[in-house]
């Protein structure tokens, strides 16, 4: 069956999308917006994305991978943005298993074995 990827931008689109996949394992990578050349303002996100993508095949069958752009840098830095307030995100990149306390934050996302552990952990 494999897995599906969905790309979203902003909090409302993220919530709608996550809810639509209710019942399937959902993994989310939150990154800073990308510019016209496809480069994110967040250098750590640039570093983490290929590491995460390389491990996606380890997700359980039927999983959904949501790639979520959170917004521009000023939005992200605002301590009251919806991602910080509602999802309790503390940094980008954040890779998490939706609906569980399992997540990897910032430099943890650079480590392939931690990413693999997140995708394969029961």
């Amino acid at each position, binding site marked *: 069956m494999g897995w599906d990827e969905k790309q979203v931008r902003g909090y409302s689109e993220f919530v709608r999308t996550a809810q639509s996949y209710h019942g399937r394992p959902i993994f989310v990578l939150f990154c800073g917006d990308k510019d016209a050349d496809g480069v994110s303002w967040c250098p750590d996100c640039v570093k983490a994305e290929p590491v995460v993508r390389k491990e996606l095949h380890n997700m359980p069958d039927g999983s959904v991978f949501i790639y979520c752009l959170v917004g521009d840098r000023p939005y992200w830095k605002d301590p009251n943005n919806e991602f910080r307030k509602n999802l309790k995100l503390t940094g980008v990149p954040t890779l998490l298993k939706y609906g*569980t*306390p*399992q*997540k*990897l934050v910032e430099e*943890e996302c650079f*480590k392939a*074995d*931690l990413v693999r*552990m997140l995708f394969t*952990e*029961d």
Partner: protein
Amino acid sequence: QEAAKYNKKVMVLDFVKPTPLGSSWGLGGTCVNVGCIPKKLMHQAALLGQALEDSRKFGWQLTEEVKHNWLTMTESVQNYIGSLNWGYRVALREKSVAYENAYGEFVGPHTVKATNKRGAEKLYTAERFLIATGERPRYLGIPGDKEYCISSDDLFSLPYCPGKTLVVGASYVALECAGFLAGLGLDVTVMVRSILLRGFDQDMANKIGDYMEGHGISFIRQFVPIKVEQIEEGTPGRLKVTAKSTNGSETIEGEYNTVLLAIGRDACTRTIGLDKVGVKINEKTGKIPVNDEEQTNVPHVYAIGDILEDKLELTPVAIQAGRLLVQRLYAGATRKCDYVNVPTTVFTPLEYGACGYSEEAAAETFGEENIEVYHSNFWPLEWTVPGRDNNKCYAKVICNLQDNERVIGFHVLGPNAGEITQGFAAAMKCGLTKEQLDTTIGIHPVCAEIFTTLTVTKRSGASILQAGC
């Protein structure tokens, strides 16, 4: 993690055999999953309920009746525990500690077999082994116990409110659970075979029991259950408990939604192949005797935690013993774990903090004529306005008359007992004497200051009833 710091190749085998009702949990051991952590959080939930009631007298206007939702609380608690489980997984991985969710058992002197939940087996060899398998709740061995009763292993993740509960036991587990369940508004009865809090200062134990009884918790004393039957299935269902008196032939029956067994915990040492490596255990209790360096009778096998014979069953003791052991083995350190004057706290509705000797143990060790017991009731300021019990909180120190009135026992019954006790434990480690206590100026207005103004001795028989500040 400590051993990995010294570049040792380390593996952790952790496996939780599900309870009879199917409960299980993640990495972290008893404390994190089914002990201290969820217990304290639920105790806090109960305290907050009390605080909401008190708040009215302080001017807060609660317009609706305040009710408690078990599922909301349990979900929050389990979520936090889940983040701890995950945190440990990440920490082990980052420190290159190999981890397997598999049941480990010795098959030879240096070989362990690890069986995962699917039954797949792997063999591992190592130079040294550390056993820290802990304990699990004991069952009564009566009809219906495993089918219908729950234990603390099930309580903290119970997917439905337990309702009217019978708690069987008089250990701190029993009393703490009974305490917070009642604090959340449930109808709670405690069935006690003989005394409360065996091993603890009995004067304090009885005060704890009296307080709980005065706050709506029923106690059935000197009875043991002999049969548990199901009247109706459900979540919770209805159970009928038949109990027999411990002196006489009287039997009683009662109906409850939930029966929580908290009659003791047994060491998980009987099915891990200790015979294959030659580690001796106490056949009766299952506990492992070790020397003062946590070494078993087999030189390359060590043990820490609740499974040790004659040692305190406390998380910080196990952690300290483990860290120091590794430092001795791999970092040339010599410090051994100090098991003397270890402070503890029982999180019953009226909390109890203690460090050092109980009154009975002090009298037995030093002779009653050689100890002086100073004591006093106290009334927390925060309890005055809402009109909560005066003369229920209590402070006691036991001093050795033959050693400069050295403080050898510290006991406090009152709110935040754990926070109060921690500092005094450090003082006792420094050799605190009654004079030093007396010359310490109190902080006002706090509960702990009572310890700086203790004058009445038990020996004098003088009254300790309080009137106010």
